[in-house]
């Protein structure tokens, strides 16, 4: 050891250790997270296409899967969405599944399922920021969980609150 000058030894040590950590970094799964793509939704697309787009939004841009599961039970922190269409139809008298879903999407805290804490962000506001068309597609997809999609882009909603309502900043999602 006495033959290698101390500074060089230390450089070697530093480089080697850094190299090892870099290797550890290379050995884990590598995944790039890309910002969501803007999906162009024509106003006259079919319900099937809406379901497909809705599924993409649900799994991607809408980041719904970060919290919600489909077909899981046990100690959940958020409601499971399997069969949601069936339950949604019966939850509020006078509300169809679509109306219930729409209202729950626009105002997440309005109907909190018993046993869960309110915690869902408003998805029509940043950071998620879906527009009305996209939310319609998500509703179409949710309908297929436990039923058949029925909505079209023109389906009127009972819920009419516009996306610009509310004056609270985005942090309103904290309990």
């Amino acid at each position: 050891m006495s033959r290698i000058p101390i500074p060089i030894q230390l450089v070697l040590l530093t480089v080697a250790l850094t190299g090892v950590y870099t290797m550890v970094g290379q050995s884990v799964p590598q995944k790039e997270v890309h910002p969501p793509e803007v999906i162009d939704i024509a106003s006259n697309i079919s319900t099937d296409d809406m379901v497909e787009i809705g599924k993409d939004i649900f799994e991607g841009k809408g980041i719904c899967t970060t919290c919600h599961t489909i077909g899981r039970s046990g100690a959940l922190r958020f409601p499971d969405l399997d069969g949601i269409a069936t339950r949604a139809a019966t939850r509020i008298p006078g509300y169809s599944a679509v109306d219930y879903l729409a209202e729950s999407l626009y105002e997440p805290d309005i109907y909190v399922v018993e046993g869960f804490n309110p915690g869902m962000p408003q998805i029509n506001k940043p950071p998620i920021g879906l527009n009305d068309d996209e939310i319609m597609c998500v509703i179409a997809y949710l309908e297929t969980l436990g039923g058949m999609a029925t909505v079209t882009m023109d389906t009127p909603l009972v819920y009419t609150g516009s996306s610009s309502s509310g004056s609270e900043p985005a942090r309103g999602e904290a309990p």
Partner: protein
Amino acid sequence: MKRKPPLILVGVLLFLAVIAAVRVAMYVNSKASYTAPIAATGEERTPRDQAIEDAAVAAQEKALERVYEEEEYRAFPRVGSRVAIWVVAQLHLLFAAFVLAVPMFAVIIEFIGYKTGDKRYDALAYEFTKLLSVSFSLTATFGAALTFMLIALYPKFTNYMMHVFSPTFLPYVLLFFFEAGFLYSYYYGWGKFGPKMHLFLGVMLNLVGTAIMFIANAWLTFMTTPSGISEHGALISTWEAVSNYTWMPINIHRIIANIAFGGSIAAAYAAYQFLKARTPEEKAHYDWMGYIGNFVAIVGLLPLPFAGYYLASEIYAFSQTMGLTMMGGAFSWLFIIQAVLIGNLFLFANWYLWLGMGRVQGAERYRSYIKYLLIIITLCFAVWATPRSIISTIEEIQSMGGSSHPALGYMGVMSAKNTAVNILILTTYVSFLLYRRSSKVPTVSWAKLGNAIQFAIFAAAASIVLFLGVYGYFVEATVRIKLSIPQVGSVLLAIILVTIIDVLLLRNAKSTTTEWGTINPVSQYLLIALAVTFTWTMGLMGYVRSGLRLHWHVYGVIRDTSPDAFTPTLGFATQVVSVTVLLFFALIGFVFWLAGLAGKKPTIEEAKTTPEAVVAS
């Protein structure tokens, strides 16, 4: 006094004379008749010349007509804006962390020296401070570079930050000014002010430094967890924007981490000097310095996981989405890397303590414990680094019947990891205690009882931690998360109680000699490794803290629409972190070298006076 008025008079006269001269010159110039420049003469122009000239004129006209457009982004050559900013910001932070941390323990050490009258401490504090001045200017340089680059590369975003934070800039600059003042007067005034005055300067230096950090923290935490603004991003309250969700957690986390980091860098400096040292005196001095630096680092390391929990819980509180992205989403594997790093930190720190026993007479009686401690640390390390979702091949998945292993699956969850980290902390504390004990023999009458009580406390804390860890598998997630509080609590309580007992127990203890400088040189390489690992961990944590925003500049307010908007892979991130770390060490090596040049003599002289008198604190 008498000479002053004429001097001023001369000055005023000179000033007036200059003005008069300028005025005369301008007047003369304005009266002169106009002469046209000499026209180009001679040759006939070819059509090509004409065309070139026309094109130039057209281009000039076009340039004149161009409308100014605000640019959103500009590109940094080759590596791209993001990586450039990333590296510069990280370097700035690393130096800043060092500059902020060193005064903290320098002042404390100086204070100890002042109180005990032991010159040695004063010399040590001075030597730490020696590292500061160059680091300070490097910090400022990188800070300036960062600012310019932000303005140049991210003009729109920077503009927005100015909109929100402009009221904080003036205080920041002022504080920076004071920081420089206090720092240099603290360093250069060593031994020239009275001790109280000097200590006061040190304390002020720390206060100002901390205040600077708080302000800067406000800016960056605002980016992650914005507040105090309207839904459309307009500023409502600057104070609200400053005191956002993660501000205080980051402040706390950074202070503690800075201390640990500063300690480890200072220890690395000592290690470097130790290895270079030729004389036993030098070796003794730097051995001791390294020990103190490492001690500071470990004291900082122990509460760091808890500060991290606090930060994470505030992020959850701000947005569950973001919290889940951090722990379960895109960044979940990052925490496996982090576990490897922190496992290494604990292992190196313990290892250093065990090697340290080599320099203490009478430590042999504890040597046989080392292997058990090592086994515990290894097990905890393994548990902590066990991934939740395991990378496996097809056959492995088939044989496991899923992507989680029937036995190892239990190791990957929070209950196991919390338990592991708490046990790690306890074990490290035990290592420290053994080290501390090795140089002392208690003389109090209740020594046996005291030992038994200490042992009982450890056993109780360990069993509580283990029990709660196992219990966590049987309860719901909400309860399970809360279990970490009693786990941590019992560990902290145990540490405090044992320390109190230990202090009482070792009152008037018989001390054996600690032969500073005789430590196994391997330990010094460990100190360097610790510093590298610390730095690397800070780089990685910087990445996750910043990366959490995903494709937002300011989360939910300003979108990142640049080509760099995506979140890079962990592999890429670790490469950038590694480059940054290597750059940092190249620069810090330069700092060490400069510090070695400056005032070598006084240190050695002072160190000479003490080594044989040295006893462990």
